[in-house]
């Protein structure tokens, strides 16, 4: 068995670009998913019953589906339903955003619900409006609990972007496997892929641990 690790260095340009795409997907998905999740969580908490049921249905549906299936589904269904053929990158982004929005919405809802009712009631009794209660009493405390969960969702999302490789989005997993197929350096490319993910993911996982310690809430 001879290994030729130079294949990794020869394709450094493609790998660097693909790593950029991985980060782009992660950042863009979060940028879409956080505001959307705020809306969905608000609908679940404060909207009229039918809207609330629809929002709950959406969250429960996407939390109970494998992401890879959502990716395939978006790839085949979005063009047929909308009549517009999106490039794979946009389709992958849509699938990731649908998935992460559901998780984030649940995070926001749980964070807001975790603040004891007595506090809102006390604030209302003091004469605050409902909006004031939310802005001054509930949100400042809830955000502290939401941030660590969002951070670990970020790391999960960073890893889950690898799943859009199945619809040929040129991110790190797809690019590595393409180079593997072209050069037949299977072990070298797959190991390089794992190492790159590890180098990028490890500090993020450690940062999440730090955020969770920093924002730990003790009651």
């Amino acid at each position, binding site marked *: 068995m001879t290994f030729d690790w130079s294949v990794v260095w020869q394709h450094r340009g493609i790998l660097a670009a693909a790593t950029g795409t991985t980060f782009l997907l992660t950042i863009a998905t979060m940028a879409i998913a956080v505001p959307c999740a705020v809306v969905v969580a608000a609908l679940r908490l404060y909207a009229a019953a039918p809207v609330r049921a629809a929002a709950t249905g959406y969250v429960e549906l996407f939390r109970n*589906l494998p992401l890879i299936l959502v990716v*395939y589904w978006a790839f085949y269904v979005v063009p047929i339903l909308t009549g517009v053929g999106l490039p794979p990158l946009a389709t992958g982004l849509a699938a990731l955003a649908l998935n992460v929005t559901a998780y984030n919405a649940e995070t926001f809802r749980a964070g807001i619900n975790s603040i004891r009712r007595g506090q809102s009631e006390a604030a209302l009794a003091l004469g605050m409006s409902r909006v004031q209660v939310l802005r001054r009493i509930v949100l400042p405390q809830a955000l502290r609990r939401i941030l660590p969960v969002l951070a670990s969702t970020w790391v999960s999302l960073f890893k889950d972007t690898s799943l859009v490789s199945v619809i040929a989005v040129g991110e790190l997993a797809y690019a590595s496997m393409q180079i593997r197929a072209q050069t037949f350096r299977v072990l070298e490319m*797959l190991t390089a892929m794992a190492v790159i993910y590890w180098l990028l993911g490890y500090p993020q996982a450690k940062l999440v641990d730090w955020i969770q310690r920093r924002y730990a809430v003790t009651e």
Partner: protein
Amino acid sequence: MDFDFSVIADHWRFLGSGVLVTLALAGLSGIASLAAGFVAALVRLYGPRWARPAIVLYIDSMRAVPVLVVLVWTFFALPIVAGITLPPFWAALLGLTVHLAAYAAEIVRAGVESVRPGQTRAALALGMSRAQVVRRIVLPQAIVRMLPAFGSLLSVTIKDTAIASVIAVPELMRQSETVAGQSFQPIEVYTFAMLVYFVLLFPVTRGVDLAYRRVAHLGRS
């Protein structure tokens, strides 16, 4: 747009076998990762000092690398290094277990650490050995507290089995891809697969919550 769901009825045997493989893979890797996670966490907490950094490195590495990468590496690269070729199902079982055991270990550690140290000290002061303290005092409370987290890990396990489709394990996702490709009816087939996964996963999350509510008092101290 016309949808023709008879494609599901035509291939029900093929798709049904995929559901069975999904359940088998999820069940086996669930049990295996639970067992491995317990061992890893207990060694990390009570084992020899030199073993701890190795286990922490293993856990944090698995939290940093995607499941897809672990599965693909186990199936394609491991045979080159180790000289043994695993069939797809067993490669998926190995890869999923290695990945999920790290998460299980974190759950076990969090559960054990949630039992206040005063209890351990009291039990030691009463003359129990360390093993007795762990077995009689810490674990009975800790295991109950771990249940909700294990429930969500089980649902993660079922979802992750779908990723095994990339190494050609004939589970539901893979079988759906095949049927979708042959019948040219991807919408019907993938929508059906969504329905099946939802029906499999939703009761797991709900069932564990209900079960936990009945035993939660056993974990209080």
